[in-house]
């Protein structure tokens, strides 16, 4: 049975990192939050970039990131007059039982006084969590997110199918996988729905993808259209194009859709393969899947990517051997060996699965070693969603 080594959290979830998360629930407190985080080892600051509203999607995702087991402890740093207050975010995370503190700059009397308190809190946590030891757990306690970005003709041919092989292995061992980017599923609704474990899950698959088609149609884009570039690149139908993207999630049955909207923010309720109602933009898509509980991310790319996430390690895999050579500083795995016949698809899939477990066990990804900590929450226009009849 495949195991990984992680840190037990009070709610029974298992972290693979011990990040000290500093959440600025409003952009106004993000600069102080970054300065504070920069002073303590293991601390990382995030914010939401959507201004001073209390958007439930933003709140769900900030709270979700705080609940992610890779966050060992959370300091919420508010300004004081924001709508999405430090208290709302802190109270959302508190049920996890992990240490949660809140500080408000207007109450403390400015950033210097706040900073002193904040740094002391983080310093104490940094010392305490350094003593925590990793223990072995079955991969039934493990969730992987898969994402693609900067794709090229090798993505659907090498990197995505190889990651799909790794996803199948993880799921067969009892683990959980989330994949998203519903825009890239257009044309494969019937295939994904056929793989759904229940009628409810199948209906949700259609609902999620049809909504993305409707959003595109509303702005005059026919998403079923194949571009000249797609056809010149070797794609023949929209099904083929989308299958190349969804293959990165593997081939196992689909447990359901994880909704990510104002009314609902779902997390996987059992092991297996889940779709998330996310976005096609890389950084926010990863943000949403990590907020739903993913501990590690596999990111496939053709042209190359630099991305890392604030609390989850991102393993970057390219199917393009030229990209691997040119951007080796940022690429973790070369799946381009499949193209020359040096390695089989299944062989690279095995290698990726091994890398996922090694990363979970503590090996740093290249993005982590370079300190990249992306974080963006994507928010749809609620007014537009209302007009489309989606809420």
């Amino acid at each position, binding site marked *: 049975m495949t195991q990984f080594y992680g840190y037990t959290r009070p709610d029974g979830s298992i972290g693979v990192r011990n990040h000290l998360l500093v959440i600025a629930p409003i952009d106004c407190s993000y600069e102080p939050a970054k300065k504070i985080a920069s002073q303590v080892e293991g601390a990382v600051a995030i914010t939401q970039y959507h201004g001073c509203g209390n958007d439930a999607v933003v709140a769900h995702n900030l709270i979700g990131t705080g609940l992610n087991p890779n966050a060992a402890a959370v300091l919420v740093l508010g300004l004081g007059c924001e709508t999405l207050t430090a208290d709302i975010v802190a109270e959302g995370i508190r049920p996890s039982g992990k240490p949660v503190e809140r500080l408000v700059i207007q109450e403390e009397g400015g950033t210097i006084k706040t900073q002193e308190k904040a740094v002391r809190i983080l310093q104490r946590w940094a010392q305490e969590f350094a003593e925590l030891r990793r223990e072995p757990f079955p991969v039934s306690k493990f969730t992987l997110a898969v994402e693609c970005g900067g794709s090229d003709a090798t993505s659907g041919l090498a990197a995505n199918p190889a990651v799909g092989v790794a996803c199948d292995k993880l799921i067969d061992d009892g683990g959980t996988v989330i994949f998203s980017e519903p825009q890239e599923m257009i*044309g494969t609704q019937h295939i994904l729905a056929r793989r759904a474990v229940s009628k409810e899950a199948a209906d949700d698959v259609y609902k999620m993808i049809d909504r993305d088609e409707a959003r595109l149609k509303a702005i005059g884009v026919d998403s079923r259209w194949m571009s000249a570039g797609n056809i010149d690149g070797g794609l023949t139908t929209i099904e083929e194009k989308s299958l190349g993207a969804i293959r990165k999630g593997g081939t196992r049955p689909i447990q359901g859709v994880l909704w990510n909207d104002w009314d609902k923010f779902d997390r996987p309720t059992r092991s297996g393969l889940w779709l998330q109602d996310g976005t096609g933009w890389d950084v926010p898509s990863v943000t949403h899947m990590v907020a739903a509980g993913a501990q590690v991310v596999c990111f496939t790319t053709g042209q190359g990517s630099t991305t890392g996430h604030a609390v989850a390690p991102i393993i970057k895999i390219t199917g393009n051997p030229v990209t691997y050579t040119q951007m080796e500083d940022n690429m973790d795995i070369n799946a381009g060996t499949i193209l020359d016949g040096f390695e089989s698809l299944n062989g690279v899939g095995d290698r990726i699965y091994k890398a996922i477990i090694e990363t979970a066990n503590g090996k740093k990804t290249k993005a982590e070693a370079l300190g990249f900590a992306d974080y963006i929450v994507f928010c749809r226009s609620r007014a537009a969603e209302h007009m489309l009849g989606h809420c």
Partner: protein
Amino acid sequence: MVKKAIQIDSKDNVATATGEVEAGRQVEVIGPDGRVILRPKVSEPIPFGHKLAIKPIKVGEHIIKYGEVIGVATRPIEAGTWVNTNNVGSARMPTKGKEEGIL
């Protein structure tokens, strides 16, 4: 080096060329487990990233890639033939062809 094409799923009846294949050249078709499953000679040049049939496919038969139906043959396709919008249409929606869009 021998030109290669990858069969992504063992159910597929097409494989994808991993480099430009010139007309008359033999291509090694590699299955997901790394074994060479076929060595067809291609009748026309096949660009990188494009598909070739690894079995004869009749008109109306499904084109299978990723283990799923990606389209339907609109012309008979011999093994080793280039598979593209000229001999395959979408099974779900009519494809009018390049630059014309769908629906």
